C-alpha cells in the first residue's frame, strides 16, 4: 500500500518512473520514523531520498546545505517541476524576503538553509513554533571535514536537533570514510541511526594522472587535449585568479571552443548565467574553483581536469563526481608538476592558527580582556590578533567550548585559562597533523604506480566494481583509444537582428509554422 503511494508520487510529482538502488529502502526507513545515514555515489539521486518524503509529509523538512548556489539550484529545479512549497534561507538574502518566508513558514514543506543561519535566534525561535518532521544534512561529511575550523556551525547541529525537539535525521554523503561516518553519528548523538552504506565508486570514470614540468606544460597539455576533444569539460583550480588567467589563455588557443570561468568571487547573476549556459550546452569548457560543482547535475560532462590538486581525496571524489552522470565513458585527468604541494600547504596554513603563535595570541586576548571583556568587531579582532577570518572562527569556537568566551564576552579565570590553552594547542597540533595526513594521502595517490582506482577507494570501502570502460592511466589507458561523442555546435556570428528573430522564433525560426 505504502509502496504504491510512494511510486505514485514518484511519477506524478517527480516524473520519474522507478527508484534507483537504495532510494526506496532509505525512503521507507524515513517514512517509518527512523534516522538514516546514507552513503551513495555522486549522481545517484540522494536528493530524492528526502524530497519525496517531504512532498508527502504534513510537517516541515529542513535541509542543511553547505553552499548557497547549491541550495538555490535545488529550489529552482523543484519549483520548475511544480513542487512550489520550497524555499531557501541564507544569510545574504534580503531581510524583507527572509521575514516573508519566516512568517509563512507553515506553508512550506521543504526549506533549505545554511548551518550558519540555523544559529540565528529568530530562525530557531520560529522553527520551534512549528513541527519540523525531518532534518536533513546534505553533504554530511562537512560535519567532519570542515566542521572543526572552517564551518564551526556544523558542529552545533547536534544542539539544534535538541532545540527542535529531536526530529528525525537524515545525513547524506557520497564521500565519507568510516572515520567520518563515525564523526557524523557522534556529533549528531544518534547512535541508533540506520546505516545505508553503498559502494561509492564510479565505474564509468577513467582515472588518469599526468606529470609535467611546469605551468606552461600544463597549459600546453590542456590545449592539445581539448583541441582533439570538444566535449563538456570542467577544469578545477585552487586559485580564483588562475581560473581567469587560464580561461583567457585557452580562449586564445582554442578559438572555436566556448570557454568561461567561474569562482566564488563573482556576483550572483554572473554565476547563474555561466552555470545555466553550461547546462544548456552554450559553453564547452569552464575553468572553476571548487565553488562550482557540488550539486551541479549536468548529464554529459565527459572530462574533468585538475590543474591544481585538491587538499584531500574526498574533495577530489566530489569534483570528479560531476563527470559522466549519464553512465557514459568519462575521464578524469589530474595534472601534476613538481612543487605543486606548496599551494595546498599554504591554504592549510591559512585555515589554522599555528600552535607556536598560540601563546602570543592568548596574551593579546588577555590584554584585551583587561581593557574590556566585550569583544570588539570581527574586523578589529582580526587586525589585533593578525589572524585570518577562518583562523578566528576556529579560535572563537574553541574558546567558547572552553568557556573562555560567553555571549561574545571574554571570561577570565587564571587556572582555567592555562588548562584550556594547553588543550587548544594540543587540538591545533592534532588538526594540523590530520590535514597534513590528508594531503599526504592525495599526493601519495598521485604518485601511485599501481592501479589508481584501487588505491583511490581503499580508504572508503574494501572493494570496487570492475570498470565499464578503461580503468586508469596505470592500467594502460591512453587517450588514443578514447572516442567520446563530440559536441557539434557551430560558432557562427549573427547580426543582432537575426539573433533577435531566433530568440522569438520569428520568420524562418517560427515554430508555429512547423
Amino acid at each position: 500500500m505504502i509502496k504504491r503511494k510512494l511510486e505514485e508520487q514518484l511519477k506524478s510529482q517527480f516524473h520519474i518512473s522507478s527508484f534507483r538502488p537504495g532510494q526506496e529502502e532509505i525512503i521507507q526507513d524515513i517514512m517509518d520514523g527512523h534516522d538514516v545515514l546514507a552513503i551513495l555515489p555522486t549522481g545517484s539521486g540522494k536528493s530524492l531520498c528526502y524530497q519525496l518524503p517531504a512532498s508527502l509529509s504534513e510537517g516541515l523538512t529542513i535541509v542543511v546545505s553547505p553552499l548557497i548556489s547549491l541550495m538555490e539550484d535545488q529550489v529552482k529545479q523543484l519549483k520548475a517541476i511544480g513542487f512550489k512549497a520550497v524555499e531557501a534561507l541564507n544569510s545574504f538574502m534580503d531581510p524583507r524576503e527572509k521575514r516573508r518566508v519566516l512568517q509563512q513558514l507553515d506553508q512550506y514543506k521543504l526549506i533549505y538553509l545554511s548551518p550558519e543561519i540555523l544559529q540565528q535566534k529568530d530562525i530557531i525561535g520560529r522553527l520551534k513554533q512549528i513541527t519540523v518532521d525531518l532534518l536533513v544534512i546534505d553533504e554530511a561529511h562537512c560535519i567532519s571535514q570542515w566542521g572543526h575550523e572552517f564551518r564551526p556551525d556544523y558542529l552545533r547541529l547536534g544542539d539544534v536537533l535538541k532545540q527542535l525537539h529531536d526530529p528525525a535525521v537524515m545525513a547524506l554523503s557520497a564521500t565519507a570514510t568510516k572515520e567520518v561516518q563515525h564523526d557524523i553519528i557522534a556529533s549528531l548523538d544518534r547512535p541508533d541511526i540506520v546505516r545505508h552504506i553503498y559502494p561509492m565508486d564510479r565505474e564509468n570514470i577513467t582515472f588518469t594522472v599526468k606529470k609535467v614540468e611546469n605551468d606552461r606544460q600544463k597549459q600546453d597539455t590542456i590545449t592539445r587535449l581539448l583541441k582533439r576533444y570538444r566535449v563538456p569539460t570542467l577544469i578545477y583550480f585552487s586559485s580564483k585568479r588562475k581560473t581567469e588567467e587560464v580561461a583567457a589563455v585557452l580562449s586564445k588557443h582554442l578559438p572555436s571552443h566556448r570557454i568561461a570561468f567561474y569562482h566564488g568571487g563573482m556576483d550572483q547573476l554572473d554565476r547563474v548565467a555561466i552555470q545555466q549556459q553550461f547546462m544548456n550546452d552554450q559553453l564547452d569548457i569552464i575553468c572553476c574553483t571548487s565553488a562550482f560543482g557540488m550539486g551541479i547535475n549536468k548529464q554529459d560532462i565527459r572530462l574533468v581536469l585538475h590543474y591544481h590538486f585538491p587538499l584531500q581525496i574526498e574533495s577530489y571524489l566530489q569534483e570528479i563526481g560531476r563527470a559522466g552522470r549519464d553512465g557514459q565513458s568519462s575521464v578524469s585527468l589530474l595534472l601534476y608538476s613538481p612543487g605543486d604541494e606548496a599551494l595546498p600547504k599554504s591554504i592549510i596554513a591559512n585555515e589554522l592558527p599555528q600552535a607556536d603563535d598560540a601563546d602570543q595570541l592568548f596574551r593579546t586576548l588577555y590584554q584585551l580582556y583587561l581593557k574590556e571583556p566585550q569583544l570588539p568587531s570581527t574586523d578589529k579582532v582580526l587586525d589585533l590578533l593578525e589572524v585570518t577570518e577562518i583562523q578566528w572562527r576556529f579560535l572563537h569556537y574553541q574558546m567558547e567550548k572552553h568557556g573562555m568566551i560567553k555571549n561574545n564576552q571574554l571570561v577570565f579565570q587564571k587556572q582555567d585559562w592555562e588548562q584550556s590553552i594547553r588543550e587548544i594547542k594540543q587540538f591545533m597540533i592534532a588538526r594540523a597533523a590530520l590535514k597534513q595526513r590528508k594531503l599526504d594521502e592525495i599526493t601519495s595517490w598521485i604518485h601511485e604506480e599501481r592501479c589508481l582506482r584501487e588505491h583511490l577507494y581503499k580508504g572508503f570501502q574494501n572493494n570496487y566494481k570492475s570498470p565499464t570502460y578503461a580503468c586508469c592511466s596505470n592500467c594502460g589507458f591512453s587517450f588514443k583509444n578514447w572516442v567520446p561523442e563530440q559536441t557539434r555546435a557551430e560558432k557562427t556570428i549573427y547580426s543582432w537582428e537575426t539573433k533577435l528573430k531566433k530568440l522569438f522564433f520569428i520568420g524562418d525560426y517560427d515554430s508555429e509554422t512547423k
Partner: protein
Amino acid sequence: MLFDYIVISCCSRFRDGRSISAVYHLLKGKRSIQTVQDSHIYQLNHFYGIYPTLQKQDFDEQIHKLVDDSLLVLNNDNTAALTDSGQHLLHRQANHGIVHYFNGMDYYQKAPVFLERLLLLIQTVTNSAENNFQFIPVIDKPIITNWVKKQYHQLRHHQAVFRSQLYKELYQLLQCCSETEANIFVDSLSGYNHYGMSSFQIADSYGLKRVDIPLVKTAMIHQMLSIITRNTTAYPIFARFFHDLPQASGITNSASKTKELLDKQYSAEEIAARRHLRLNTIYDHVVEIALYEDEFPLEQYVTTDKQSEILAAVNDTSSYKLKDIKWKVSETISYFQIRLVLAVEKIS
C-alpha cells in the same frame, strides 16, 4: 570608457566642492538629502542612480586607475580635480551618443524594474511557445515574477500574436540604438534553451570594460523609456509595462512623516521633540521637502531680504560650498537657511 567619462564629468562639475565619494553616492542613487541636493545643484540629475549595483570596491579601483592614468588627481581633502588630459577626454567624448540617453532622476527607480520585467517576460513567452514550463527563471524576485505571471495569464490565448508584437516593439526600440548597443542588449537576453551572456562575457566579446556594461544597459533602458513615453500608441505592450512601475517617490519615508506634521502646522522644533529626532535631522527633511515641492513656503523659514542676501553671496562666490557662502552672509543666517534657499532655487 563610459564609466570613466561619467566620473570625470561629475568631478568636473563638483570641482573642489565635493569629495570623490559624492560621485559614488550619486551614481548609486543614495537616498540622502545631501546626494539628491548635489545632483540638483550641480546639474547632474541625468546621472543620479544610474549604477545601483556599483560596488564601493570597484568604484575605488576605477578611481585609482584614473589617477594612475593621470586623468584625475586626488587632493588631500578627498576632492578630485581634472588634469589636462582629463579635460581633454571630457571634451573629446562630449558627443558620445550614449551619454545623452541617461535620465537618472526620472528613471532611476523605473529602469531596473522595467529591465527585469522585460527579461523575464521574454524568457517566459519564448519558453511557453515551445510548451516548456520547466525553465529556471532569470529573475526570481516575487514582485517581478508576479507581474509577469499576471501578464501571461491575460494573454495566454493570444500568445503568438503577443510574442510577435513584443518582438516588433523591441526591434523598433533597438533600431534607435547603435549596432554595438543593440548587439549587447540582444546577447544578454535569455530564451528557450538559451541563457543570456553575463556582463563579463559581453565585456570580453566586445572588448569593453566590465564596469561599463551595466551602464550601457541602463542607458539603453533610459532611452527606450523616453521613446516609449513620447509615443505610447506605437508601443502598446511596453505601455503596459508603465502601468505599475514604481513612481519616483521623491522624498524618503522619514521626511514624508515630517511633511505630514509640517502640513499640520507643527514647527520643526516640535516635530523633533515629538519624533525623538535631532533638530538637524528635521532640518534635513525640510530641505529634502523643499527640493521636491513646487510651492514650498520658503518665507516661513527665510525672509525675502535674507533670501536675496544669500543669492547674492552664491553669485559672488560662484561656488556652492556652504562654508564659502556662510562666510559672505550676515551672521544671523544659518546653514539651514542657506541650504533651503539653494534647494528651492534648484540652484546651479
